[in-house]
């Protein structure tokens, strides 16, 4: 029952975000600030996860494909897995851990120290001022980070496949271009945008509704990461079922 109530409240917050998003002025400075926080500052962690995921994927698929002499498919397997699935999902999970948690903690602290009330008192709507920029920034930056992750994953896969496992580099690249098309990339990026919405919406909702001092902030942060991660993984299944 509580879960249903919570889902309803998140939905109401989403409607409120949309209604404040379309009302001018759009606070571009705040959006850029959040884009830097969500996007630019997450690049390092996304590059690392993308690269190593591509590398391990190449290694694992090589051992599998070798059993029936299909090592030439390693490149396309890595590229397809990264663009369709692992790029968006792993990027979203890493950004949830880094930025989604920070959103919950920052808004939670602002709530318990009455800074959100102070915004309201100064006739500034806190949803417009605090949440809308975070949601817009996340929806824009997640696809961009996913492109970085996809690219680094393929580079990592290339490095392991061609340099370490000595797969012919011409075949490695050719199979990528043969089996992966732009539709795979676009669908992956659409997923990333949805994940960006989920992680920012959940992070902001949990932070915004924090009660109970420092302990409450800690609880909100943990709950935000857990709920956003689970929602991302569940919605990933349904998005995949619809798209591919």
């Amino acid at each position: 029952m509580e879960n249903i109530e919570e889902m309803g409240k998140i939905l109401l917050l989403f409607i409120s975000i949309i209604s404040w998003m379309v009302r001018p002025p759009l606070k571009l400075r705040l959006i850029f600030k959040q884009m830097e926080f969500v996007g630019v500052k997450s690049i390092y962690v996304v590059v690392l996860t993308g690269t190593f995921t591509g590398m391990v994927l190449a290694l694992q698929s090589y051992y599998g494909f070798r059993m029936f002499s299909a090592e030439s498919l390693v490149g396309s397997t890595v590229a397809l897995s990264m663009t369709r699935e692992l790029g968006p999902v792993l990027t979203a999970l890493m950004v949830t851990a880094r930025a989604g948690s920070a959103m919950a903690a920052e808004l939670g602290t602002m709530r318990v120290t009455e800074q959100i009330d102070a915004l309201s008192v100064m006739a500034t709507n806190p949803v417009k001022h605090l949440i809308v920029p975070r949601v817009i920034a996340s929806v824009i930056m997640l696809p961009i980070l996913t492109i970085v992750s996809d690219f680094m994953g393929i580079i990592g896969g290339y490095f392991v496949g061609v340099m370490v496992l000595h797969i012919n580099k011409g075949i490695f690249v050719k199979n990528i271009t043969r089996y992966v098309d732009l539709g795979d990339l676009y669908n992956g990026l659409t997923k990333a945008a949805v994940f960006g919405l989920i992680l920012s919406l959940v992070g902001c909702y949990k932070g915004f509704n924090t009660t109970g001092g420092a302990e409450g902030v800690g609880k909100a942060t943990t709950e935000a990461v857990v709920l956003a991660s689970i929602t991302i993984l569940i919605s990933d299944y349904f998005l995949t079922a619809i798209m591919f």
Partner: protein
Amino acid sequence: MIELVDVHKSFGTQKVLDGLNLRIEDGKTTVIIGKSGGGKSVLLKHIIGLLKPDSGQILVNGIDITTLNDRELNEVRKNFGMLFQEAALFDSMNVGENVAFPLREHTKKKEKEIREIVDERLRAVGLPGVENKMPSELSGGMRKRVGLARALAMHPQIILYDEPTTGLDPIMTEAINDLIINTQKNFNVTCVVISHDIESIFEIGHNIAMLYDGKIVEYGTPEVIKQSDNPVLKQFLSGSLVGPISIM
């Protein structure tokens, strides 16, 4: 004029305001006293629309703010300034940005003009030249004074103070009391102050209201309050453990 008419508010099963009536006079300082956890902050949050009553009216300059939508409420709020208990400064901004915040949000003033107003307001609260400090670098008393400077930034008609002297040393308490008195006189504003500090309330208040059991049980000038026979008020002012107010 602010008027609360038959205001009821409960949180779950706990009744906090129970048919409260209060009229706050223009251009005067009204102090609301009452025991901790007795609903004083809840009352203040109703006056500025941060909380909505379960029933009753809250009239600000004749407008019932409980019926307003977000946009209309924001227009009413532009007449208010509020000093929060812990100042509620934005910790991601420095002092200057905090004080300038409402000006940048709601006016089209040029940066130079905004800087001049910030400087003037900080001088008025006795803190010139701290614009570039972060709130975390300030003491509790300084934070409250910056909070007051921010509350004054838009020249509000009404200022709400939520326990402005709680947790401060006697000298800083006196300094804040002086600020409240001078601000009220210089800007001719209506002030609503929540306080437990008995000495302060008689110093700053033109009118004093005692909140007990969700209602205003006594209201009057400091002289009237001092001479009141109301047992609740007498116990509160004397700090006695014996009387109608229980500490549970």
